[in-house]
């Protein structure tokens, strides 16, 4: 362990290295995201993720936001353990009937003002699961949605772009 810790002192950070030309856009987005969060959430935004029936593909990519490459917390965005600590619900899945009440209750437990971001193709309208006896068919069927991030699953870059888009929407309010 000592070697690893010593190495990490000398090594340059992994966090998205100097902008390679093809990645300039996403770095710029991240810089803007910081500004957006500062303007509307006083430097921080707490996110509560709710899986309302996803295949867990979205969760894998949301997890990736916390890895050293994306390191979402450097923008003041962090995932919290309770809806009562959250400013924003990040909801995935087509909302199964079995999760409908739990999602509604989670929403009700989140203090206002609150935002809801639906992430992933099936969170929009049920996607590939639309029409199933077991699905409500999209997050907006159960709680009001402020923004939808497409993708199956949305990549970490796209998720960050989506959060940025939410900030811009808030600014116009």
């Amino acid at each position: 362990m000592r070697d690893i810790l010593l190495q990490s002192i000398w090594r340059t950070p992994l966090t998205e290295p100097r902008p390679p030309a093809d990645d300039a856009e996403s770095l710029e987005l991240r810089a803007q995201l910081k500004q957006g969060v500062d303007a509307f959430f006083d430097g921080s935004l707490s996110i509560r993720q709710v899986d309302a029936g996803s295949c867990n593909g979205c969760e894998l990519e949301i997890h990736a936001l916390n890895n050293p490459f994306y390191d979402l917390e450097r923008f003041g965005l962090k995932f919290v353990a309770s809806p009562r600590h959250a400013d924003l619900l990040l909801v995935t899945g087509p909302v199964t009937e079995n999760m409908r009440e739990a999602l509604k209750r989670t929403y009700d437990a989140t203090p206002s003002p609150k935002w809801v971001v639906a992430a992933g193709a099936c969170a929009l309208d049920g996607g590939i699961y639309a029409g199933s006896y077991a699905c409500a068919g999209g997050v907006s069927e159960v709680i009001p949605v402020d923004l939808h991030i497409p993708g199956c699953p949305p990549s970490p870059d796209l998720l960050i772009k989506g959060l940025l888009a939410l900030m811009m929407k808030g600014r116009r309010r």
Partner: protein
Amino acid sequence: MPNLSEILDAFPEIENHRPWPRRLVDAASWRALTELLAEGEISLLGLWGDAGHVHMAVLATEPWSIAVASLACANGKFPSVGRHHAPAIRLERTIHDLFGHEASGAVDKRPWLDHGRWRLRAPLGQQTPPLGQQTPPLGERTTPPAYDFVKNIGEGLHQIPVGPVHAGIIEPGHFRFTANGETIVRLEERLGYVHKGVEGLMAGAPLARAARLAARCSGDSTVACSLAFSRAVEAAMGVEVLAGAVSVRALMAELERLANHIGDIGAICNDAAFALMLAYCSVLRERILRACYTGFGHRLMMDAIVPGGLSVDFGENEAEVIRQLVATVRLAMPQLIELYDDTASLQDRTAGSGVLKRELARRFACGGFVGRGSGRSFDARRDVAYPPYDRLSFDVPVLQEGDVNARVWIRIKEVEQSLGLIEQILTSAPSAGRINAEPRATQACATEGLALVEGFRGDILAWVRVAPDATIERCHLRDPSWFQWPVLEAAIEGNIVADFPLCNKSFNCSYSGHDL
């Protein structure tokens, strides 16, 4: 007691079921099979419903062989398997929820996936009320009846209900702990929250749509699910896949295994409050996903495998990206293994916690690292030996301890094996361009196929019946988690509540793959 072939050989094989035989048996033979399961002579691979029937897939050992038995449900009933062989209990409850077939003599008649919130009951069977006369979903109207949890009574016992929404980026499920102080006396799981009705959506779906549904059974096993589904369809329709595509499919399956194992090793250590490991492992995982994106156009390689072949090109440029990735992972792993092995405070948490007894792993036929960490030496890649694994060399690591530490070590060793497999595939694979032989509607009658594929979690069973017009008539996908979730309840007994996340993560069962 008659053995498996003595029981089954009395009945003729059903035509057009490939590659293993399916036989329509009578109730007495069904009971005899149940007895063999209970005696441990054979293992249960799956138990699923169909219109008017139930099917059971079993695995015989030494030599490994697979057989399917079907039973017509007289008056909507069939003799309970779960009464004598516990691994079947949740499967029978599911058959009742989805098809309405009743397991007579069953010990547990509570619903499993049906939480009383759907518009109808027995959605794949009689459908009461029938489609078209549906009431609004129950969630809107009233509260469904409370679930009857097993009661634990004793001095000093208290309950801790957790979920379905957990404190993290995890799938939903409910855990009911009964604890005495810090110690867990009993855990009861309640799942089904992410039931999306996939098997209902599959019925009547064209192959392309069904393949997309199969790829989304469990996102972390998307390659393995697609492979299992595709292999079942190909078996049913008699489609040969080009050798190049077979190799590239295995390449993807090993990359998926690599990404999940490395990611989970980090996550398990993180649940023991050792975040350093998570940081390093998640870097490696991210590198793998990025290489997959370059190689296959999708970070999780979703929809890259389709019935008949592949939907992506894989050429020399892509192969080079994967070669570089293997070199990177090979360079990084020894240091991480050393870090895990040399950190006594971490070992203190993982060694001896969450012990799954060998006998239980054998009885439940636990697949993957859960079984292999508890002495069950089974790997579909080696024992079913589907191509291209029949011509590749690799070891199947097995440990006996059955604790969190053993499961971590199995994963570490499997990372090594997967790296070796990827290298073998990349040196021996014929270079492949776009390979896609789409199965067409040519057969005269419905055909059936079965496949068993080793995902990172364990063996995934896929069974399909394809209609003459090349649509799916019935498809059943059995995730390895079906035989891992129940034993988690046993493995956690006597551990402290605070170690549950650690033990749970070391199993890492899929909610979505189970609930479907």
